[in-house]
């Protein structure tokens, strides 16, 4: 037990617990190649950190984990910078909208509910899709998503304007598609305090048809910029970035991620995807339980600073 006072959250926490949680989330992110924000924010909220501070500080922590991740992917040449650039142009717009929306919801007292509901909706759909996809590929005994599946699966996508060539991914698609995806994920980054990788990665594979090996590097690449922009806006507009909390999370996360990456190399891709899907669905059902269970106390008090 090392009590530490979080100056922005204005509460004291056990530093060991927070570092341990950072390590756990870092481990899963290293294991599965996702940012882990979707786990971190709910865990921080379960600990009693105000949801708003959990989101702001979580976003700041994701910068660190995606920087260290993207460096490794750059070394292997797994980053489509052009695609990342288009995604992040949309992402900037989205995160700006998201931070404003966050601020509005905070004043009307619905931010907590919005954060939880967004988690439930996105975790359920992404987890469900991943699980179905991995189980199907397991039954067929074929590596999943290796055959190119482009936006040609979607007739409407082919009719969109501004087609653009992405040599690294070997794609020729309308720029509107990645831009729109960027905006949507940017909003989620701001509201949910996640990097958005868990939405972006499946969207890149299934909507854009990008080859799997460049997906994670490219997603991390754009996450860095979107989380930098979001952290800046959260810190200046909502004042919900706690430097001490971030520091503890980063310390745990860095160690955990290395440990997870090593473990991941031993487990293998398809099994990893099934595990990740189960994990996502597990967090989701925990949140659903919290939303529908009769609360211990239906009342809550907040102090409004004038």
């Amino acid at each position, binding site marked *: 037990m090392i009590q530490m*006072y979080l100056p922005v959250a204005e509460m004291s926490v056990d530093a060991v617990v927070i570092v341990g949680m950072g390590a756990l989330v870092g481990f899963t992110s290293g294991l599965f190649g996702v940012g882990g924000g979707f786990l971190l924010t709910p865990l921080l909220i379960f600990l009693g950190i105000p949801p708003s501070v959990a989101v702001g500080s979580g976003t700041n922590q994701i910068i660190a984990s995606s920087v260290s991740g993207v*460096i490794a992917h750059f070394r292997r040449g797994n980053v489509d910078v052009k695609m990342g650039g288009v995604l992040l142009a949309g992402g900037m717009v989205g995160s700006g909208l998201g931070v404003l929306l966050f601020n509005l919801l905070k004043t009307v*007292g619905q931010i907590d509910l919005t954060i939880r509901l967004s988690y439930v909706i996105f975790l359920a759909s992404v987890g469900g899709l991943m699980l179905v996809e991995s189980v199907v590929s397991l039954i067929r005994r074929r590596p999943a998503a290796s055959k190119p599946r482009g936006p040609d699966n979607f007739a409407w996508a082919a009719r969109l304007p501004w087609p653009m060539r992405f040599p690294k991914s070997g794609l020729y698609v309308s720029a509107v598609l990645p831009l729109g995806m960027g905006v949507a994920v940017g909003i989620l980054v701001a509201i949910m305090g996640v990097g958005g990788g868990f939405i972006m990665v499946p969207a890149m594979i299934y909507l854009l048809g990008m080859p799997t090996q460049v997906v994670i590097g490219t997603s991390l690449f754009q996450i860095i910029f979107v989380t*930098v922009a979001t952290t*800046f806006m959260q810190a200046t507009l909502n*004042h919900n970035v706690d430097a001490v909390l971030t520091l503890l999370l980063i310390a745990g996360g860095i160690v955990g991620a290395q440990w997870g990456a090593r473990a991941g190399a031993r487990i293998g891709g398809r099994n990893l995807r099934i595990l990740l899907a189960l994990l996502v669905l597990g967090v989701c059902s925990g949140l659903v339980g919290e939303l529908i269970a009769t609360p211990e106390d239906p009342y*809550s008090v907040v102090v409004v600073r004038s």
Partner: protein
Amino acid sequence: MRKLLSPLLACLGLLALSGDGAGAARPVVADLSNHLVAITTGFSGTHVLVFGATDDRKGDIVMVVRGPRETHVVREKVRVAGVWVNRNAAEFPAIPAYYAVAATAPLNAVMPWEIRKRHGIGVEALPLAATDSSGRALGEEASRRFRSALVRIKQQAGLYPEALGLVSTLENRLFRAELDLPATVPVGSYSVEVYFVQEGQVIGAEITPLFVSKTGFSADVYDFAMYSAARYAFASILFAVFAGWAAALVFRR
């Protein structure tokens, strides 16, 4: 600054004492073990001792501690389509963020209700008026409901402690009580009021200030985050980028 101020304040205190009249001691004097509660990085709550003495008359001691006044919003969750949603809300403008009472005997036995009401002594005597978001007073029933929720939650958080430990007395002249400040104690200026009560009448009172403030590292971080938000944001981002880069460098395989 504080070092300079305190002897000055002490002198003023002496002047005030001597101004009370030749030889006539004040009916009650009180002080705190600590006038400044510093919230540092390792802060996990603290105690402050309130102590003092009365003249040789018989009577009771009542202490009231009031924290900084802040607007509190109480929200009520209602089940909508199976999900619990914040629906109704009540605003309590400028009410003490911390409030504690202690006495040598049950408050009802010590003071008549009118005096308690007038001075706001005891949580039930506190003027806690609920309004809606546009400042209109709430109805009787809603008002009572939100008020009791507010008091209950504040008590659970240790911010409206039901009894700050009874005041203990020694030889009928010296008294002391321990004030519990939890880790979540609100920052700001507090007043510690000590009343000397005889047969329902207040025959002496003393008010002592208490300051709770963040100091050192956590104060610096808080001020930085609130008042230089843009620079704070840059620093947080730079730190995260650097940490990520350093991690990639250290763990390079």
